[in-house]
Structures are given as C-alpha cells and as structure tokens.
C-alpha cells in the first residue's frame, strides 16, 4: 500500500525534497523524531521512491526483542546453532537483499550488536549464527530512533563509528506541535481514509468546534495520537468526551509556558537523584528484602519526580498529570499514597 507523507508545513515540504534527492542513492539514513511523528512513513516513502521498490521492505524493531533473539532475527542461523534451532533460518538482512531493512529504535540496540552491525555495514557481509560462511547482502539500511544518538555517544551507549556510518543522510521530523499547519491536512487525509476503510459506517466529517480543538491541541503523541483520536471520534463515536478532554487539556496548558516547562522538565528528569542511601533508609535488617528495597526506591524516585513537577506547575495538578503522562486520577492517588504535601506558599488553583 502506498503510504504518503502528509503535510504542507515547510518542514514536511523540505523532507519531501530531501527524499527526492536521496531515495535513489542507497546511502544509509537515520530518521529521528519523537514517537508518533511518522518515521516509518518516511522510511516507506524512501523505499517506494527508490529503485528497490519491487524488492522486500523488512522492518525490525530493535527494542522489541532481547539481544540473542534480535541477533538471530537479523542474521539468521544454521541448523543446530543453538538449542531449539531445529532448522536453518534466514535472517532479515538476507531477506532484505536488494531491498530495504528498516531498523526501528536503533538507539536501543546493545553495544555488542552495534559492533556486529557496524561490521556488516563496512563489509557488506555477515555470517548467520553457527555458520562460518559469510553471506554478501546488498541491503539498504534505513534506521530510526527517538533518542538523541549524539547524547548516547557521550553516554557511551552508542558507538560513534556506527553513528557516522549510519548517519550519511539525516532526516529529522519535527513534532506536530511545531507544525500545526499540518493538522488539518492530516485530519482530512485520515477522515477520507476511514470513510474508505469503514464504508458500512456513515462517517461524518468533524464539525468546526472539534477542528478548532484539534488545531489548538499540542498532540504530545504526534500524528499517531491524532490518528487514534480521530478514529475514536469518527468510528467508535465517543467523541464528546475526547473533545472536552482536548479543550480542557489545552486551556490548562498555555502554549507560552508549555515549551519552557517541557525543556526544564527534561533537564530535571536527568538530575533527579536515583541513588539509594542504605544507611539512612535501612534500619531493620529483618526487613531487608530486595522486593521491599525496590518498592521503596521506586516510591522515592516517583515522589521526587512528582514533587518536582508539581513545584514547576505551581501545583496545577492537571498540568502536572499531562507532563508526567499519567491520568489526573492517578496523580491524585499518588499524591495521597506517597504523602506528598502541598507547601503552604503555593496558592491553590
């Protein structure tokens, strides 16, 4: 199925132009952007516009599989390579020969597998598990991640040499809140799409009030969230409450303070103290179970995080629940459970 890249914003126009220039090159590409912005869509458009579009497009999610399994998925194995390897299996690299291998969530790949991937990219060859024979693969690798790989390099969790080898072409897709002019285009596209897909249902297009709510909402889950919300409204019919949720969410979350809060929150998230002081916390060794420690430590981190966000939002619980990505109800429950007290200096909402 043809997957178009929807949007009229300068950012999307630029991405289309970039795709036009690189789709026929077979050069390694990294697509970055927040969850739900459409990284896979871009990879599929690249594939469709490339001379490889009559060969396979194979997707592997590097975060979804444990290391050993991911390795055998990518490179395949010989019969008897490990317990359970009853017959030989081709890996995705081989299956994507002459086509495209889309490595989603590349930022989550372990260091040993990164080393192996680098070797394949350098030599164009790999050996299935349990085999000494190297197989040549002409595979176009397109990788995607919502992580900042440069940051992962400084944390030493991503190899710099692999980064440079993959990053020959970089495509960054900005979040939807930074390109609101695309919202209407996306709504129109998906509405038409749902009308075709669910032809038995009499789907009515969104009214103006809902469209306004869509346009002013900040869409933290990006295009995917918009698509799901639209589906819930148009097909499942529980529209009224969703729209109220969107309107309420946006009025609680003025755009001027939004980006500042997000920036400072991201910075703070990395500074919250995650260490656990045993001397101070553990007084009775008869209660020293790992499970108990785990719960206490998690509670402590959660408490710190919630307290921090509440102080940033001046104890606006609705704003805080959005930032923490938990429901309002859960936040209220956590405040009670974790004994988080509102400082007297804070003026109530």
């Amino acid at each position: 199925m043809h997957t178009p890249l929807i949007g009229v914003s300068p950012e999307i126009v630029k991405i289309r132009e970039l795709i036009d220039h690189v789709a026929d090159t077979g050069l390694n590409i990294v697509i970055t952007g927040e969850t739900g912005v459409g990284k896979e869509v871009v990879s599929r458009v690249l594939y469709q516009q490339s001379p490889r579009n009559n060969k396979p497009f194979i997707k592997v999610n590097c975060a979804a599989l444990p290391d050993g399994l991911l390795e055998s998925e990518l490179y395949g194995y010989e019969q008897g390579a490990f317990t359970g390897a009853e017959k030989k299996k081709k890996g995705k690299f081989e299956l994507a020969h002459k086509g495209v291998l889309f490595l989603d969530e590349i930022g989550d790949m372990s260091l040993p597998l990164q080393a192996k991937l680098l070797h394949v990219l350098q030599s164009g060859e790999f050996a299935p598990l349990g085999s000494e024979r190297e197989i040549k693969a002409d595979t176009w690798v397109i990788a995607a991640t919502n992580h900042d790989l440069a940051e992962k390099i400084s944390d030493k969790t991503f190899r710099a040499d692999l980064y440079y080898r993959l990053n020959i072409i970089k495509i960054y897709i900005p979040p939807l809140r930074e390109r609101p002019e695309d919202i209407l285009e996306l709504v129109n596209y998906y509405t038409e799409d749902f009308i075709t897909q669910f032809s038995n249902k009499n789907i009515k297009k969104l009214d103006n009030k809902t469209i306004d709510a869509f346009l002013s909402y900040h869409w933290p889950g990006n295009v995917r969230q918009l698509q799901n919300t639209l589906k819930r409204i148009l097909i499942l019919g529980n529209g009224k409450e969703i729209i109220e949720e969107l309107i309420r969410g946006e009025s609680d979350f003025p755009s001027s303070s939004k980006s500042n809060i997000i920036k400072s929150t991201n910075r703070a998230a990395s500074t919250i103290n995650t260490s656990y002081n045993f001397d101070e916390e553990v007084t009775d060794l008869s209660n020293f179970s790992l499970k108990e420690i785990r719960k206490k430590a998690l509670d402590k981190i959660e408490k710190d995080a919630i307290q921090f966000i509440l102080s940033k939002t001046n104890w606006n619980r609705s704003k805080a629940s959005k930032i923490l990505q938990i429901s309002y109800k859960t936040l209220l429950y956590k405040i009670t459970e974790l004994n988080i007290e509102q400082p007297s200096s804070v003026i109530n909402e």
Partner: protein
Amino acid sequence: MNKQAKLLIIDDSDVIVEMLYQFLKSKNYDLVSASNGLDGIKLFNADAEGFDLVITDIVMPNISGVGVISILKNKRPNLPIIAITGFGEHPESLAAEAHADVVLEKPIDLNILNQHISDLVRKNSTYQSEVK
C-alpha cells in the same frame, strides 16, 4: 586557464564559509556556497557541468559530506572534491571511502588548501581536454 575556476563550498558554519569565501575570492575563483548538503546538491545540479571543484564539510544537517561526495561522484565521477572534517577519524575514513580526492582536517592551512585546489583543477582540466 582562460576562465576562472568555479568552486562550490558546502559548510554549515557561516564562519568557515565566510573565511573560505574571502580567501578564495582573493585567489580569483568564481564561488558559490551552501550551508547544508541538500542545498549544495541543488546548486550543483543547477549547473552540473559548470563546477570545477567542490569543497565540503563532513558533519552537516540533512545530507552529510559523505552523502554529498557519493551523490556528486555518482553524477560526475571525475569531479574533484575536497572534504574538510573536524571530527576524529571515523568521518575521515568514510570521506575517503566515498572517494573524496583530498581529506583535510580542521584547522586547515589555507595555503595548503589553495595548493590542493590548483592541483586538482589543473589535473582535471587536462583530463577534460584529453577526453574532448
């Protein structure tokens, strides 16, 4: 050489572009510059046969220098390209693999750069006239 050699400079640092521009202008080159790989390729395509040499940075937004070299060399295999890099050995070896004619590491010595430019342009114009 009768006409001025036409060079394309691609670098995302305004400071570097300005420095190269001023220096190479004084050496009487005809110059065009771009601040990222995609713009560089678009400018190149607008006069693909007209450029005598390309100078490109390696680490850049959208299309990296390695991408630029591969794409341009694919279009014109004999086009002389000088890659400039400031980031360790990985991009350098990639630039060489992508067949950059010369790879220079920042900080660059402008006189050495100029020497490479004249050598490559001269060599290429001799080659072009032999082909003709």
